[in-house]
């Protein structure tokens, strides 16, 4: 890999920046199936990392570990300077407020309207009671994803792209410092996919977040990534910018960019 940096080199180069997520030798198995074999990654403040890889390689498992939805078997995983495995329940709760997670399906609460979906984290997590403040935040979030008209609609009335936008608005309403995107453009047409990718970049700039984006979509990767890591068989095999990886002589890496 002439034009791509190894993980060790990359860690050394960016050590001076503030690291919001640090993963060291992460391992995770489900029964006999070792999904994550040795994951090493550092996400720096303000950075967008795209993780590419074939299905079933454990890309989503990595970000689920970061969000504390599952615990790693071995290795270190620090989020905002604290080891996730050692966090108390209150610390985990506080960490999750700072880490937004956009699910592949949007995961909107289908018994609630868009407005109720957005007010849910405000009233339950931030414990806001001021109706004016709640309304203001909801309108601001919906405006930032361009969906103010959908405020009274139910998720079943929304298209796939609109659901992703509302999911994004609901996640960003808590003002997270880190965003984890699980295949944000899967199942969308190319035009909507581009719109969502551009929205991710715009919102990252507006809210000053750092992001890990799991995707198969090369258009999304090109638009959103500051840096791309390629995952294969439970390990990250290459890392670099889009332009660097396009020129990679490694066949496996090159196949993604064909």
């Amino acid at each position, binding site marked *: 890999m002439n034009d791509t940096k190894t993980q060790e080199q990359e860690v050394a180069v960016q050590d001076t920046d503030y690291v919001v997520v640090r993963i060291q030798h992460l391992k995770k198995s489900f029964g006999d199936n070792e999904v994550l074999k040795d994951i090493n990654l550092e996400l720096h403040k303000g950075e967008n990392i795209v993780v590419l890889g074939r299905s079933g390689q454990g890309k989503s498992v990595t970000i689920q570990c970061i*969000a*504390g*939805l599952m615990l790693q078997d071995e290795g270190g995983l620090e989020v905002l300077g604290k080891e996730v495995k050692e966090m108390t329940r209150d610390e985990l*709760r*506080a960490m*999750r*407020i700072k*880490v*937004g*997670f956009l*699910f*592949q*399906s949007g*995961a*909107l*609460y*289908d018994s609630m309207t868009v407005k109720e979906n957005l007010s*849910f*984290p405000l009233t*339950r*997590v931030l*414990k806001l009671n001021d109706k004016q403040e709640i309304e203001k935040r909801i309108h601001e979030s919906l405006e930032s994803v361009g969906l103010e008209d959908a405020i009274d609609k139910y998720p079943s009335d929304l298209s796939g792209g609109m659901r992703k936008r509302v999911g994004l608005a*609901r*996640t960003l309403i*808590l003002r997270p410092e880190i965003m984890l995107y699980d295949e944000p453009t899967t199942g969308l047409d190319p035009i909507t996919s581009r719109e969502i990718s551009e929205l991710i970049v715009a919102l990252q700039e507006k809210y000053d977040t750092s992001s890990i984006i799991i995707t198969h979509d090369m258009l999304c990767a090109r638009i959103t990534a500051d840096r791309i890591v390629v995952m294969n068989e439970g390990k990250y095999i290459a890392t670099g910018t889009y332009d660097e990886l396009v020129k990679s002589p490694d066949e496996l890496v090159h196949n993604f960019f064909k």
Partner: protein
Amino acid sequence: MASAIISSFSRYMEIAGDQVLFTGRFARNIFRGGFEWGEFLRQCYIVGYKSIGLVGITGFIIGFVLTLQTQPTLKTFGAQSFVPSMVAISIIREIGPVIIALICAGKIASSIGAELGSMKVTEQIDAMEVSSANPVQYLVVTRILACTIMVPLLTIMADALALLGGYVGVNIQDHVSFSLFFRKSFSALEFSDVMPALIKTFFFGYAIGFVGCYKGYHSKRGTESVGLAANSAVVSASLWIILLDAIAVQITNMIVY
């Protein structure tokens, strides 16, 4: 063979342990601040109000059919005056609570199992958890408490309609006045008939809510698991109702007689 038995036993123990932990999470979250009153009342409406039709019709028909079935036999022995008291005791002590609980298991446990199962599959529960909201407090506590409170109320309503059904049944062949029928029905009932029957319906309601929530909350990924969650919620809740009824009868007999 032995290893299969051991593995099956350990699997059952695992599930039992998991259910104990789930009960603990439920109990802890009842008393945690920020009770979800809005969702609780919505669930009471869904579990209670929306079951009135089904439970009411079932109750009425149980009383009606029980009367039609027993009246000719009692008439043979010249004991038809015992029809109201027999219907009242049978309905209030046993048939009403158990049948209504089984009907509710079919309607409510399956719907809770399917709803939470589908929320699990579509990552809605994970979304609540990952945003630091408390899905147990919002989804589980409200549903279990709504079932625990509404199933007894539905049973009381069904018992009343069953007695009305009995009155209609009696009047198909004979003529008994409304006041005489109900006076004879209530005069046959004692405190020890009504209270244990009422108390056990709270446990039936709890079992229905708990099993529905547990099965839905722990369903696996994939659409097939939603159907499985709904189906196993009904089967398990029905078994629990029968088991709890057997225990309740034994305890009542020990205390009262």
